[in-house]
C-alpha cells in the first residue's frame, strides 16, 4: 500500500535513517591519526611535534588524543625502526631540484612569487555585471590535461557562485568567491565553469581553463602506480639551513607518489616531517622519524614538506616535483 500522504512519508523515512554503530570508532581513529596520534593498527609513527604547532592546535590535538585513548585504544605508536636500502638512494645535497641543498638559502619559487603578485594586485572597479543568460557553450568532456585554477575576484561588491558544467551540461555548485578572494581548484582543461551572482543567480562569466604546456594528460594522471620519489637522507653531520618561509607551496596537478625519508642520525634525535599546505603554511600534521628509521609517506608529486630536527631547526625543504599547472585567472 502506498501511504496516503506520500511526500510526508518519504521525508519521515529519512529521519529514521542511521549509520552503522562502528562508524564512530573508525572516524575517531582517523581524526586522531590525522591530527597527530599514532594508530594502534600500526600506522607508521605519527605524533605531534609541539614546536611546530600553535598552542591552540597542540591543545586540540592532545585533547582528541586523550579522548581517543580513553575511548579504548588509540595509543601513540613510535615510528618503525627498520632502515631501508634502495639503489635510488641519494644524499640530501645531491637531489637537485627535489630539495634545497643543506646550507643553501632557499629561493622563493615562481609559484610563490606569482601568488604574491596576484594577492597584491589592485582590485578593479566592480565590473561583475551579468551577461545574457544562455545555455552553456560547452559541456565537460572526458580526457584533457590537468590544470590548477587560481581564480581571483577583482569584484568590489559582488560575491559570485562557481559552478562546474558537468558532462550533461548541468551546473554543479563548486564554491563561493567573495570580492578580492582567490579560489583554487584542481581540474582539467576540458571542464568549463560558470560564475553567477551570488545574490541574483544571474550569469556573470563562463570560461574553460586554458591548456598548460606540458601538463600531464588525464589518462597518464589517473592510471599507473604511484611515483617513487627519491629518498631523502638526513645524516649525522647535516647542519641546519637558514630559517625562511617555504620556497614553494603544495600545489595541485601531481600524481600519487611515495616520499621516502631516512634518518641516519644516531645521536641527533628524531626528525619531524612537516607538511606545507597550499598557502605555504606549515600544517600541524607532523610525522616523526626516529633515529635510524626510515619512513615512507604516501603523498602526491605536488606536495611540499619540511624536515626539522627535535629542536625545531630546519634541515631541508622537500619541494613539489610535478609541473606547476597553476593558471591565474581573474573575475570578471
Amino acid at each position, binding site marked *: *500500500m*502506498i*501511504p496516503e500522504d*506520500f*511526500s510526508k*512519508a*518519504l*521525508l*519521515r*523515512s*529519512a*529521519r*529514521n*535513517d*542511521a*549509520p552503522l554503530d562502528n*562508524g*564512530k570508532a*573508525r*572516524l*575517531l581513529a*582517523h*581524526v586522531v591519526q*590525522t*591530527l597527530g596520534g599514532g594508530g594502534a593498527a600500526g600506522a607508521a609513527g605519527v605524533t605531534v611535534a609541539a614546536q611546530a604547532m600553535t598552542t*591552540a*592546535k597542540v591543545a*586540540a*590535538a592532545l585533547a*582528541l588524543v586523550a*579522548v581517543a585513548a580513553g575511548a579504548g585504544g588509540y595509543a601513540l605508536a613510535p615510528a618503525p625502526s627498520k632502515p631501508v636500502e634502495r639503489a635510488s638512494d641519494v644524499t640530501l645535497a645531491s637531489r637537485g631540484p627535489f630539495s634545497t641543498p643543506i646550507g643553501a638559502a632557499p629561493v622563493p619559487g615562481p609559484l610563490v612569487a606569482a601568488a604574491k603578485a596576484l594577492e597584491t594586485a589592485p582590485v578593479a572597479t566592480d565590473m561583475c555585471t551579468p551577461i545574457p543568460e544562455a545555455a552553456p557553450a560547452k559541456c*565537460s568532456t*572526458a580526457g584533457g590535461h590537468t590544470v590548477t585554477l587560481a581564480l581571483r575576484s577583482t569584484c568590489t561588491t559582488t560575491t559570485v557562485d562557481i559552478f*562546474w558544467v*558537468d*558532462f550533461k551540461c*548541468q*551546473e*554543479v*555548485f*563548486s*564554491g*563561493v568567491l567573495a570580492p578580492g578572494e582567490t579560489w583554487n581548484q584542481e581540474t582539467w582543461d576540458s571542464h568549463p565553469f560558470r560564475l553567477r551572482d*551570488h*545574490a541574483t543567480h544571474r550569469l556573470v562569466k563562463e570560461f574553460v581553463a586554458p591548456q598548460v604546456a606540458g601538463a600531464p594528460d*588525464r589518462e597518464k594522471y*589517473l592510471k599507473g602506480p604511484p611515483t617513487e620519489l627519491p629518498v631523502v637522507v638526513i645524516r649525522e653531520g647535516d647542519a641546519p639551513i637558514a630559517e625562511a618561509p617555504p620556497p614553494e607551496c603544495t600545489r595541485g596537478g601531481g600524481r600519487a607518489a611515495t616520499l621516502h625519508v631516512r634518518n641516519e642520525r644516531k645521536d641527533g634525535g628524531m626528525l619531524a616531517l612537516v607538511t606545507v599546505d597550499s598557502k605555504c603554511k606549515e600544517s*600541524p600534521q607532523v610525522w616523526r622519524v626516529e633515529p635510524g628509521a626510515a619512513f615512507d609517506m604516501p603523498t602526491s608529486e605536488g606536495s611540499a614538506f619540511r624536515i626539522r630536527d627535535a629542536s625545531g631547526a630546519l634541515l631541508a625543504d622537500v619541494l613539489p616535483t610535478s609541473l606547476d599547472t597553476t593558471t591565474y585567472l581573474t573575475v570578471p
Partner: protein
Amino acid sequence: MVIDSHYDAVWRFLRRLGLQPVDVEDALQKVFVVFAQRETGVAAGAERSFLFASALRIASDARRKHAASREHLVDTEDLPEQADPAPSVEDTIDDRRLRRWLDDVLDTLSDEHRAVLVLVDLEEQTMADASSVLGIPQGTVASRLRRAREVFEAAASELRARVEKDTR
C-alpha cells in the same frame, strides 16, 4: 563531544545530498578533520552549522569526482540492461523502500534546491541556520525552499503514480 552529538545528523545529511553509503564514511572523516583543525574558531552552538557547511562542500566535491570518474571509466554502451526499478506487488512499503524512493525524488532536484530542502525539511534547521550553512541570504533560502518543495512534490506525485500503476 562533537562526534557523538553530530555524527548521525552529518551522516544523514551526506546521504541525502546524494552520496552513496560507500562514500559517506570518507566524507565524514573529512568533515570532522576540518572541524578538529578549526575547532577553536567555531563559536559555541555553531558546531552543527559549521559541520553541515563543510559537509555540503565535501559532498559536492565527492559527487563531482564520482561523476568525473564514472564518465571516464564507464561507457554507457557497455552497461548491462538495467532491471525495472519499480517494486513488485509483493514488496512492502517499509522505511528502507521509502528512503530509496526519497533518494530517487531528491535526485530530481538541483544541488542547491536539494541542499536547502534537506537542511530545512529533513534536518529541521531554521532558515537562519540554513542561511549560515549555505552562505546565502535568508530570502534566497526561502525562495529556493519554495521552489525545491514544488519540484519535490511534483516528483513524488509522479513516482507515486508510477508505483501505483506497477503494483496494480
